């Protein structure tokens, strides 16, 4: 490779680059000049592919020959809410097969919303001698047979994290496939597994892995066995309990309390399925040190819940059901001054009537009391512009604000006005806002505010909002950093989309379902924009059997250098020049 005499040695640049790990920085480095591009690509160790269809594995392999860690995402985010029909795609096998040949030294694979077969897991298990970390987040398509292959073959495994994945588990015995000589496990998350795992295998595994810092159990691990596990791993930093109920027996209680007391490093707690409140005091010894508490699956209510939370004075992250109510959030605001992230989930999302007293007041209290609040996910049944304006003023550092008012198109319940002003205040005051989810009654005006003020916004989720294409146009033309846009049930049609076609190439993806985009517009977009895949998803049948101006059911547009994909099911059509 040609080098100018004045440039410093490759090795020095490589050494400098070894300290640069952020993808954005690495990408910037690679654009400086050809020689930097070359040096950078040879020493890049980690790659993040936000959309597995944006690039082909061969392209990644060709450019980055020395990868040790690959992270991929598959289905669009709305797949979490059943809006993407089964079989849409996101199958990881082609990637795994390619990676297996190209990177024998690969150490980490992290997948999100992908379809992972047992065969894929077997290939992983057998192809990478130094494999260390497997994260399967919201994945599906595999069973405990695949996990057994990983357990049996990955001698240096450090992390196995199955968060929120759907796993077929015919057998709980896979855990026993970790050989007795296997001691390297540092992180294990099996909270999503439905069936029991062999407890004795689990206990022995936990006991012989001195580096185990994260252990998230599934609900099938009974409470009276938890103490044994804890005594075998007092170095734990993150724990997810199993079921938290048992017959209230003094010896079980004191055993458990003693075990918790011994875990001096514990910083994060989760689990708590089916809580029997009588056992909650067993965790009190560790509460003051907790920075993260996830009670999303815990049916604790009232005073028990408030008492637990108010003891966690160092809390930075709280995930909780709306059983916490306004009153509990007031307490939270008073006690937990370091809180940065709050998520409040609905305990009865489909009930017609509220079953708890959780309103906008709770969130306002938290914004008042917790100056470091940055990330909010809040399900509630009523909201006002005034509350949103107050929250915006109290939390200028907000980076992620997701509000879900359960009734679609609910107005400000006091003034009956749309919530445009409230969300407008959020985007205007929270200048670092990167993620926003809207709900309630909203007109095109809110999108005008978003387009004007939300200059750092990267992800926007919209449902049942807006009046016309103007709304979509404001967002596409105004939000410079927009990366992902997902829209459902909004009156957005062809005009805004076609007028902002080039914008779509600057974004990762756009999802629109139950909107008003016509088949004709989709075809046009697909024909004219070769670097976009325009996927029409329609379970009613081929769109060309209907009039061209008929709106499509669902539309998924993403930029890609891989061209159209060929693994589409019968209800997905890619629009491009030839195939339509």
């Amino acid at each position: 490779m040609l080098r100018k005499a004045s440039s410093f040695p490759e090795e020095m640049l490589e050494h400098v680059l070894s300290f640069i790990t952020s993808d954005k920085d690495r990408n910037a480095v690679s654009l400086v000049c050809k020689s930097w591009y070359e040096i950078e690509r040879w020493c890049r160790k980690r790659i993040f592919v936000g959309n597995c269809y944006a690039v082909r594995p061969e392209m990644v392999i060709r450019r980055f020959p020395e990868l040790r860690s690959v992270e991929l995402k598959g289905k669009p985010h709305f797949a979490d809410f059943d809006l993407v029909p089964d079989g849409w795609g996101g199958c990881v096998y082609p990637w795994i097969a390619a990676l297996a040949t190209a990177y024998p030294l690969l150490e980490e694979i992290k997948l999100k919303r992908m379809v992972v077969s047992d065969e894929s897991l077997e290939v992983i298990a057998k192809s990478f001698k130094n494999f260390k970390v497997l994260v399967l987040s919201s994945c599906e398509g595999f069973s405990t047979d695949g996990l057994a292959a990983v357990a049996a073959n990955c001698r240096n495994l450090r992390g196995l994290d199955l968060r929120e994945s759907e796993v077929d588990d015919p057998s709980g015995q896979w855990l026993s496939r970790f050989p007795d000589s296997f001691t390297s496990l540092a992180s294990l998350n099996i909270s999503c597994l439905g069936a029991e795992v062999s407890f004795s295998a689990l206990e022995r595994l936990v006991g012989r892995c001195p580096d185990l810092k994260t252990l998230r159990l599934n609900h099938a691990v009974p409470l009276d066995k938890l103490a044994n596990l804890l005594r075998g791993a007092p170095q734990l930093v993150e724990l997810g309990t199993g079921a938290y109920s048992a017959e209230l027996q003094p010896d079980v209680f004191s055993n458990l309390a003693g075990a918790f007391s011994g875990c001096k490093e514990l910083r994060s707690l989760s689990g708590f399925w089916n809580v029997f409140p009588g056992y909650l005091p067993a965790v009190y010894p560790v509460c003051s040190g907790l920075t993260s508490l996830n009670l999303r699956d815990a049916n604790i209510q009232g005073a028990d819940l408030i008492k637990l939370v108010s003891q966690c004075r160092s809390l930075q992250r709280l995930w909780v059901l709306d059983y916490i109510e306004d009153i509990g959030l007031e307490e939270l605001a008073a006690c937990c001054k370091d809180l940065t992230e709050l998520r409040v989930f609905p305990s009865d999302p489909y009930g017609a009537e509220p079953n708890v007293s959780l309103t906008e007041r709770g969130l306002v209290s938290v914004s008042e009391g917790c100056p470091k609040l940055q990330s909010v996910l809040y399900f509630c049944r009523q909201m006002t512009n005034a509350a949103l304006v107050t929250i915006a003023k109290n939390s200028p550092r907000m980076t992620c604000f997701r509000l879900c008012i359960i009734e679609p198109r609910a107005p400000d319940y006091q003034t009956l006005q749309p919530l445009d002003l409230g969300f407008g205040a959020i985007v205007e005051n929270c200048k670092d806002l990167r993620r926003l989810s809207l709900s309630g009654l909203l007109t095109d005006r809110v999108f005008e505010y978003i387009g004007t003020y939300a200059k750092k916004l990267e992800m926007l989720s919209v449902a049942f909002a807006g009046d016309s294409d103007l709304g979509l146009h404001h967002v596409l033309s105004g939000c410079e950093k927009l990366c992902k846009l997902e829209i459902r049930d909004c009156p957005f049609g062809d005009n805004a989309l076609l007028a902002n076609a080039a914008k779509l190439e600057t974004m990762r993806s756009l999802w629109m379902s139950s909107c008003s985009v016509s088949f004709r517009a989709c075809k046009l977009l697909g024909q004219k924009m070769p670097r976009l895949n325009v996927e029409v998803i329609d379970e009613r049948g081929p769109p060309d059997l209907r009039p061209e101006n008929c709106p499509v059911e669902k539309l998924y547009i993403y930029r890609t250098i891989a061209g159209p994909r060929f693994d589409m099911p019968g209800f997905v059509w890619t629009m491009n020049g030839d195939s339509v």
Partner: protein
Amino acid sequence: MELQLGLRSLPTYNFIENFDLNNDGFEPKDQMLGSKPWIISCEDGNNMDNKRSSEVAFGKNTGYASRELPLLLWSGQPNDEDDWNGEKKISCSINKNGEEENRVEGWPPINSWRKKVLHHDQDQVRHVMNSSRMAAAGNYENGDGSNSKYVKVKMEGVAITRKIDLRLYNSYQTLTKSLTSMFAKCQNLGNDAARYSLTYQDKDGDWLVAGDVPWQSFMESVQRLKIVRNAG
């Protein structure tokens, strides 16, 4: 927004025929579109020109003045060809049990994995609970196989109806203690707690005062609870 209504009659699709997304292929056959294709970029500069040219395209005479202009940029009306009238579109979906749910699909945005797991979990948890023996020992009925008994609790004067799992309690005392703490905080009862009584509806639909029958019988027959103010 009144301006929008005046523009309702303008066509939406005609201009697409002449519309070319691609800068290279742009054919200036429609002079009214101006010298620049008024499509694409997000830079403000271009937008300004685009706004002007679109006004020309639609025969508008108004000069570029303020941020209000975006309303005029478009033909402005909601797309006519759909049935969207700002009305609620509720899709009735039939869930796996064949029950018709008057719910909007995928709303509220709860993780579907969690929904499935919760259903599955209920069964699994019951199985686990069976083997680990329930807290309300002595009240556990082997027969029904269900390990929780949720009943609604309504308090006079309180809008929200709560739900509690009676199997967590083994006596009237523990039950009332828990209810007091649950409701007291909201109502600032304090000493007033003495002025309330706990009543329940039994299997026959009758409302009775709680405490008269043995706990076991109470547990078998209670359907719902109500906390009422004492008279006088």
